[in-house]
């Protein structure tokens, strides 16, 4: 099916998320939509998907105009969407998830599970998407869940498939498998819209590339005619430094010492399995790896948030294993959490209040149990200026800030304390390029001021740019550490997929 978008515009109050977007995707084509976080890609896809209605513009399928008033219409028209955050129900089986909304029923509305199972098996075979119809979705790996999402779309006879940032949660290996599936779907005549901000992937898989920035289409091109530098420039609107300028590290004393760390996660599984490493002041140790391999639990273990910890964690020689978060904070550990809205900020608190979220009970912010608001506000003003936080005043609720500014509040709070160790988990997820550059700069300057930085990141580019040493985390175990520059990108990718590499076997560096 041929897909054409004409002048799609979508506004949210004052914000114009999509601004007169034109796009054409032919039948049997993989069309990549490239843009940085916040550019308007997902909004556009939600318009296509029927979740939003465009304020202006038209959608044409096979040159016939269509109107979607809800997702059901879009599905019936042959559009299948695989969302960035999976729309799957963990407590249902694969078959139930695939069936939902499109149930196979026998008389009286009773579910016909046998028919559903047969259909799923048939689709699996046809496109190489191995899934077990009776498995509980919550127990599947991320890659498998993604396959379920694709089967779900295909089960409704989707002719246009939209994949929203599908590789964000995949290992390089799984990404290759996904690309194979995409090619097979393409040869069956389907149109694939592939949304991403990753330049390398776009060049590897797409037939055509459309770049969007700040809601507008900047241009359309094909991989043969362009390269990373040019695409990046189109995405961001200026020359982009793909590397971060940083001086060589000067490591000092050991700040964080982990030995035989084990962490059991909320569902009872062993998420961290015997992890040991040292981290010194003045260096950045990056933990690379696809999300879901225990990084979250590792971060929890070294900040006091894990509930069941085995092994030892020592901060500057003091054993803090299993201590409460407060003890870690007092020991000089700064935490920049993965989920800033849930864990890092109180959305309804003002910026000033958020800036003292973990130090409100220490001098000078409070004396004898009573808060000193004058000092708190004065300090807040200083920080806002120092960290370039864009807001109407220090009294606005944090939830009204953009993601980049929210992260700046957290960074401002954590880096302004007397800290020995920074644990930064996915610190630039969902941020625009400007904020990413800012956060990277701050981490490097904290390192130069003598702090130890534990960077946990699923973004290979970020790891390569910032790390002084690299470890790779896979299924709860660490491989490495390796000095930065001693591994190629491909090698790290393989390690992230659990495949051993020569150097790892030699156990280089410590």
């Amino acid at each position: 099916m041929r897909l054409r978008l004409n002048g799609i515009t979508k506004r949210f109050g004052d914000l114009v998320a999509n601004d007169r977007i034109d796009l054409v995707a032919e039948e049997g084509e993989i069309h990549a939509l490239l843009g940085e976080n916040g550019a308007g890609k997902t909004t556009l896809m939600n318009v296509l998907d029927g979740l939003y209605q465009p304020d202006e513009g038209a959608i044409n399928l096979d040159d016939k105009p269509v109107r979607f008033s809800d997702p059901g219409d879009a599905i019936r028209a042959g559009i299948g969407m695989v969302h960035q955050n999976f729309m799957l129900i963990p407590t249902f089986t694969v078959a139930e998830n695939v069936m939902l909304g499109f149930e196979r029923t026998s008389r009286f509305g009773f579910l016909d599970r046998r028919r559903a199972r047969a259909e799923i098996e048939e689709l699996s075979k046809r496109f190489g998407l191995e899934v077990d119809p009776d498995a509980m979705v919550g127990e599947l790996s991320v890659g498998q869940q993604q396959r379920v999402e694709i089967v779900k779309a295909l089960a409704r006879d989707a002719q246009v498939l939209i994949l929203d940032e599908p590789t964000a949660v995949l290992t390089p290996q799984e990404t290759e498998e996904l690309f194979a599936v995409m090619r097979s779907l393409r040869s069956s005549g389907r149109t694939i819209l592939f949304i991403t901000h990753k330049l390398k992937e776009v060049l590897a898989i797409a037939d055509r590339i459309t770049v969007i920035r700040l809601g507008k289409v900047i241009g359309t091109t094909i991989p043969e005619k362009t390269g990373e530098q040019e695409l990046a420039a189109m995405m961001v609107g200026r020359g982009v430094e793909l590397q971060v300028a940083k001086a060589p590290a000067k490591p000092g004393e050991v700040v964080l010492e982990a030995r035989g760390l084990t962490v059991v996660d909320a569902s009872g599984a062993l998420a961290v399995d015997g992890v040991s490493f040292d981290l010194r002041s003045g260096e950045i140790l990056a933990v690379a790896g696809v999300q879901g391999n225990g990084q979250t639990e590792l971060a929890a273990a070294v900040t006091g948030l894990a509930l069941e910890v085995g092994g030892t964690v020592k901060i500057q020689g003091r054993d803090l294993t299993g201590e409460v978060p407060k003890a870690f904070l007092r020991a000089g550990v700064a935490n920049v959490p993965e989920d800033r809205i849930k864990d890092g900020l109180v959305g309804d608190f003002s910026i000033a209040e958020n800036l003292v979220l973990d130090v409100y009970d220490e001098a000078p912010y409070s004396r004898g149990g009573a808060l000193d608001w004058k000092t708190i506000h004065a300090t807040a003003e200083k920080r806002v200026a120092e960290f370039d936080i864009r807001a109407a005043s220090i009294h606005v609720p944090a939830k009204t800030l953009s993601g980049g500014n929210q992260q700046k509040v957290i960074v401002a709070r954590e880096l302004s304390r007397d800290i020995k160790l920074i644990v930064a988990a996915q610190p630039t997820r969902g941020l625009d390029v400007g904020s990413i550059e800012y956060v990277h700069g701050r981490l490097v300057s904290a390192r130069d001021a003598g702090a130890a930085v534990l960077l946990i990141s699923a973004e290979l580019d970020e790891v390569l740019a910032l790390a002084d040493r690299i470890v790779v985390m896979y299924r709860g175990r660490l491989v490495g550490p390796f000095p930065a520059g001693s591994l190629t990108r491909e090698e790290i990718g393989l390690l992230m997929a659990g495949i051993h590499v020569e150097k790892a076997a030699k156990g280089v560096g410590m």
Partner: protein
Amino acid sequence: MSAEKSGKRAALGSGSRKDSAAPIQPELRRNLEALRRRSFGIALFALAVIIFYFAFGNAPSAATVFSLSAGPAIALPLIHLPLVATEIFLGIVCALLGVAQILWRTNRRIYLLLGIGLAITGVAFLAWAGKGQSVDVEGLLITSLIEAVPLTLGALSGLLCERAGVINIAIEGQFLVSAFVGALVGSATGNLWAGLVCGALAGGLIGLILAVFAITYAADQIIVGVVLDAFAVGLTSFFLQSVLVPNQAALNSPTVFDPIPIPLLNRIPIVGPLLFNQNIFVYLTILILAAVQIGLFHTRWGLRVRAVGEHPRAADTVGINVKAVRYRNVVLGGIVAGIGGASFTIGSTGQFAYNMTAGLGYIALAAMIFGRWRPLGALGAALLFGFTDALQFTLSVLNVPIPSSFLTMFPYLATILAVAGLVGRVLPPAADGQYYARE
């Protein structure tokens, strides 16, 4: 289980994406399980000790009689239990269960064993309490079932709402309003069926109000529920004072539904009078229970409802109308609660009295949680709470040396224990209590 653990949940697509992590180290898991087994086993031993205590200080000739016959059932002979021997026997059985629990290799049936232990303790307690007298066990069972009817219907109501993602604290209010309307209409029209239908509709109306406030206007669901309860108390007592009391005979004296005996089946000993000689409310409860159980887990309707309760956005993206599903379920839940409320008046006492539901709406919620948001589980929990309620009647008849006030506390204390003991380990529907809008 601390407050923190009870709040954790592995959510899909909300930031914590899980690869299939390595299975928990076999040793670690074994240790945790063994610990659990041991503590349950010790609990069984504690129960055995209590049973042995019952044996103390009794003359060797002391005996209790259990009567198991009632109504049209074929009469069973009375069971004479020599007190000391019975208690010792039961105590030994319970202790053996404790030993078995500790020695057993697996943790399966761990709750079943505890349940059996509790049941044995219950029997031992009855034997002790009824020392030298006759205990009407069949009557106790029948009363338990009758007490469990509104609790079951209330729990089913809560379930219907929460499975779709809406918390219904207004069950108490729905009970009150439908009890009132049932009595009023049944009395005024002389037609009990009219009373039942109107009572059910009254409950549905309260459900509709809850739905409008919670689903369309995004008000906090717990607040709306509690306020609706206060509203119901105020409204029903207001009209009780101003309209019913001056016109007692005409408006507050409905007759009560007679039991509907099912011939032949109701002559089966023990089970007969229990299940086949009851009034319409018991039969309705069984029907509704079956309908909800089958509906929720085997039909398209149920799949969609559960999807809306777990992940409304996912349901939305496949074209399900989340708000409509929620509205339907909340109103349906109100109707079911309405039937339960009507049972207070036209199903048992006849007259409406001030605040006559005495917190049973809240106990029904506890039964729902205790039953892990499943219909059959809720039934089990409701039967348990109904039993504690019925127990206090039996005990007061038996002149047990416990003040009546403490007996009345029984069901409430039992609820607290149940909720405290279990809640950390159960998971409500993931989107329970959350407002959903497409933005």
